[in-house]
């Protein structure tokens, strides 16, 4: 079933929407969660929580043309929260390291609440991504959206780990330059 029909089912409050979503995207969502939290049982919990959240948020959202990305964003958010809240998963160091890498992109990191709204930040990040070629953009997204390990990215893109690290380093530097050039202090 195509995504717009699945979303219609959600909008009609038809519970088969969840079953069909699970059949179509369950394994990808579970795999995304597992990549972040590295625990099969918790990954399944995250997948199920994703369906609940989708049920709760469609409507008002109507992600007919981007259902997977919509669901994956929920899974990512839930999985990240799991990493932070469940010490038994032992993923705090991994998240800390990714955060440290992200911090290198921020011109003047501080603890003050974010001074830029989501819409402006979205334009900024997507504007930056549009300047990258497809491969670099995908590597950046695999690392900081899908939270993949360097080794996994290297395998996925058939390149050495050192090339992945170099690419990410350059992307972070370019994002930082982009932020400075656009005059944003975030």
């Amino acid at each position: 079933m195509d995504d717009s029909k699945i979303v219609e089912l959600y909008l009609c409050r038809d519970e088969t929407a969840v079953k069909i979503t699970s059949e179509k995207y369950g394994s990808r969502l579970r795999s995304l969660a597992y990549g972040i939290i590295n625990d099969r049982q918790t990954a399944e919990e995250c997948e199920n929580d994703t369906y609940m959240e989708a049920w709760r948020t469609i409507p008002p959202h109507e992600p007919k043309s981007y259902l997977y990305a919509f669901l994956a964003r929920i899974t990512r958010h839930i999985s990240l929260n799991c990493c932070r809240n469940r010490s038994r998963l032992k993923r705090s160091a991994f998240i800390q390291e990714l955060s440290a890498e992200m911090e290198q992109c921020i011109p003047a990191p501080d603890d003050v609440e974010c001074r830029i709204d989501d819409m402006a930040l979205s334009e900024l990040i997507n504007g930056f991504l549009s300047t990258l070629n497809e491969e670099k953009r995908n590597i950046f997204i695999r690392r900081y959206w899908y939270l993949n390990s360097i080794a996994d990215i290297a395998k996925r893109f058939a390149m050495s780990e050192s090339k992945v690290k170099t690419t990410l380093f350059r992307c972070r530097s370019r994002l930082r330059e982009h932020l400075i050039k656009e005059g944003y202090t975030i």
Partner: protein
Amino acid sequence: MRGNMLLEKMTLIDPAYVEAADAILKKNKSTRIKWAAAAACLALAAFAGSIIGQTPPSSRISIGGIIRKYKNVSVTENLLAIEWPWEYKTISEQYTTLILDGKEFLSGRSVDASRIADNLGRYDVTGFDTYTGQEHRMTAEVYRIAGISQDRLVAVKLDGEFYVFSRNEYVPPKNLGEMLDDYSLEQNLSLERFSECDGYKETGFYRLNDDAYIWQVLNTCRSAEFTGDDILGEDGRNLSFTATSDALGIYKRVFCVTEDGYIKTNLFDYAYIFHIGSTAAEQILSYAAENRIEAAPEPYMSSLAGILTEITDEYILVDDTVLCADEKDGMRFKIYLDDLRISRHIDFEGITVGDVVVVSFTGSIDVEAGNAVEGVYSLSRGFLSEDGISVPE
């Protein structure tokens, strides 16, 4: 804003970009192969693998041959995303690219001088300093490696040492015979250590005294066609040979023979699969079953962890008391700093006394030399938690 918030805000990335980054890629290097035996999936083997999942209150594990009695701890170690400044890179990390006859070759492991054959001439090798954006270039002697096609691998002399440079393009051999010939595989690879597997599950670890018969069978299958690199699903019964070769510049990769008649290998970065037929495969499996000798599992590498207690000009000391079930059992391990791959973690990354560290090594521990750890190639900072130690990626 701090890094954790920006990481959270990555959800603002355009859904189209997110979808595109999740598309399945073709021609991945070994991506979908779950190498059951010796491969990288055992990257944490000796330390993490031995500890994770052990029941409290303590576990006996072997660290480089020394038995330690540790508390129930878990260690996860992954690679740090550090791009080293130019001066902190090893020579083969600095000069990574060679163009020879219009073909690109990339740097790899060092190779012993005894493997070097004809001099192919002097060529430019290049590297890139990401910190300054500067390209570096130098001229180096390039050599053929004995018995190996210069279309596949060559050796480059950098700072007096030879390094294997391998062809970067995806150019699979037409058939098994071409792979055997291009790399003189029979001469350069030993097929004497293997694990027996049922699908992905390893059911035993063995060695053979002689692999001549296996090569004999493989040589009868020289016309076995290359069938692709796209491996999905489990393989039924199969033998996974551990593939390490100085001449080929490879360390603990996999050469797998499946009962349904396939050779699957990641020897040369990409997954190569050849169909040799079930009769030939059965000959190899039967020979291995009849001649195998039980062997201990061979970890991909070993690790030890503890608190960094001392840094001298020559070495660092790592104390594992914090992991011990009984604090009185704590030991200190000596790690020499004469390898840039280790010293740069102290000099540049700033790992210092009091930090939790994880040390990865391929050698053993010389007790008589003050528990000196041999073959150390990586040092990582870790974090202590109530559950043990974890190392950030």
